[in-house]
């Protein structure tokens, strides 16, 4: 554990990613203290104000609401959606991917056929269909996005498992008498963690954007509660007159994604004994 911390501190990308995510979390946790306004306060004097005008550092939107404040509050939704949906997708996708990859056979084929069928639908369409079943609301949106991510996780994990399974050290463990459970948890899982981390961090942005789409369709977060995604979609009618409405939530999503990717990259390297000095 101690050496993990030491290696963590040494990894530039892990530290940078960790900082970005930490700032995000602090914004989310202490939003009422950090925000300069109420997220649904409409300042009719300053509609579509430019950044800096009237005490609105990032400007205001078409209702005169403070964009900085809405970004700070929006980080709550976006982080939650990102973490929970990716968590659902990664967890269930990994289980299915491991079963399909490790046991192949009938069960594996069945899982992959089902998977391929799901993957042939557009991502958003599937999420909308899920929402039709689950009903609207933020919580259901996170579940829907998570479920929609399962097939792609399952596929990535399955191919990682198929590769590792061929390694002689897996055969060696079996020959020593290791049960399937032991082989999976002690040998396969630790060796697919890198793929899992990287793929999860890549999917974070997808989750945030999907939430935006669902919110835009009135299926996700209900206005006036802000999320980065919904702010972005509201901004698209004002791109000419008020580009800052899109730029700031876009930047927030971008920076957070970069943060997760850096953290993911760093963690992968830290966890790989081959890269230790």
């Amino acid at each position, binding site marked *: 554990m101690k050496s993990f911390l030491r290696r963590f501190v040494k990894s530039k990308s892990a530290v940078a990613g960790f900082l970005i995510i930490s700032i995000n979390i602090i914004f989310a946790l202490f939003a009422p203290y950090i925000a300069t306004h109420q997220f649904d306060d409409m300042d009719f004097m300053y509609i579509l104000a430019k950044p800096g005008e009237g005490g609105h550092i990032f400007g205001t939107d078409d209702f005169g609401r403070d964009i900085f404040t809405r970004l700070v509050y929006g980080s709550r939704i976006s982080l939650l959606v990102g973490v929970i949906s990716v968590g659902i997708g990664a967890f269930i996708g990994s289980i299915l991917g491991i079963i399909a990859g490790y046991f192949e056979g009938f069960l594996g084929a069945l899982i992959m056929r089902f998977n391929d069928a799901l993957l042939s639908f557009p991502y958003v369409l599937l999420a909308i269909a899920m929402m039709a079943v689950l009903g609207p609301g933020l919580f259901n949106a996170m579940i829907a996005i998570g479920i929609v991510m399962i097939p792609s996780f399952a596929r990535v994990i399955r191919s990682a498992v198929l590769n590792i399974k061929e390694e002689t050290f897996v055969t*060696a463990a079996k020959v020593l*008498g290791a049960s399937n459970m032991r082989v999976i948890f002690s040998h396969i899982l630790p060796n697919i963690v890198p793929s899992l981390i990287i793929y999860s961090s890549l999917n974070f942005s997808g989750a945030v954007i999907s939430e935006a789409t669902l919110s835009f369709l009135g299926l996700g977060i209900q206005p006036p509660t802000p999320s980065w995604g919904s702010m972005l979609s509201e901004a698209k009618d004002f791109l000419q007159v008020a580009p800052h409405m899109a730029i700031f939530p876009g930047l927030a999503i971008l920076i957070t994604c970069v943060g997760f990717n850096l953290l993911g990259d760093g963690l992968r390297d830290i966890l790989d004994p081959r890269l230790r000095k």
Partner: protein
Amino acid sequence: MKLLEVRNLKVFFPIKDKLFGKPDKFVKAVNDVSFHVEKGEIFSIVGESGSGKSTIAFTLMGIYRKNNGDIVFNGKKIENIGDFDLLRKRIQIVFQDPDSSLDPRKRVRDIIGEGLKIHKIGTKAEINRKIEDVVEKVGLTQDILKKYPHELSGGQKQRVGIARALILEPELLILDEPTASLDVSIQAQILNLLVELQERLGLTYILITHDLNLVKHISDRIMVMYLGKVMEIGSTAQIMSGPLHPYTKALLASVPVPDPEKRNEDEETLTGEIPSPLNPPEGCPFRPRCKYSMDDCWNELEPIEMKERIVFCHLYKEHENSGGV
């Protein structure tokens, strides 16, 4: 005393039809192979790549399933997975490729100790003592235990592989080309270690190799294989100084002789390609490359036993049961 007896072993791999996934062809990787291993001996299996050596090893370890035949260990028939599981501690294997045979995310201590953990042998202290013990046996120092595989040299990796197999105190150790992927200078060290361990611990070895040179000084008996079939089985002296099967002769001739003077004039060499195992020749598999081939060679081979040796070659039919060559 026979420690292991293999009778008429057949191991076929289905080749799946790409479109429908139905097996429509088989690779007869091991096709009707019989041999036995005496307790305490080094029994070598020699053959070119693809002759089915590893398949025999993996089948003996219960990784591949046999299609046919008997495996008898210590007088007891080994039939299903459960039987193999009971044998884990008594038969172990050292793999050909030390690079991929060690989990890159485990420390050497955990790699070597895994067998004890799986079989729940001993307390933590006892496990540690056994690990340190076996590390010394294979000629490594204790500081290796906290290292990861990528920090080790090829020779060290193979020693770790040997230690992992030995810690369960097996009676029979299968060595699948234990030195093939090592530098020549390291090969001799590992081979010496194996011979020393065999004497010290009273082990029995099945030593798999494609290099006759490697085994001629250390093995007691040799089995020569070609395309899934046995060509010849005999004592090392018999095989080395009086090979019977044309394939064995060719194999011996392809071993470089240090002194050119000693070279045989009408030396047989291996010409032509190894036929595809998907489509092996009828009769004797060596027929298309054999310069003695005759009509008879299109027929299935029967083992011809002479004294302590067995040869699968129609040339020796008349010698059958005559007891001499």
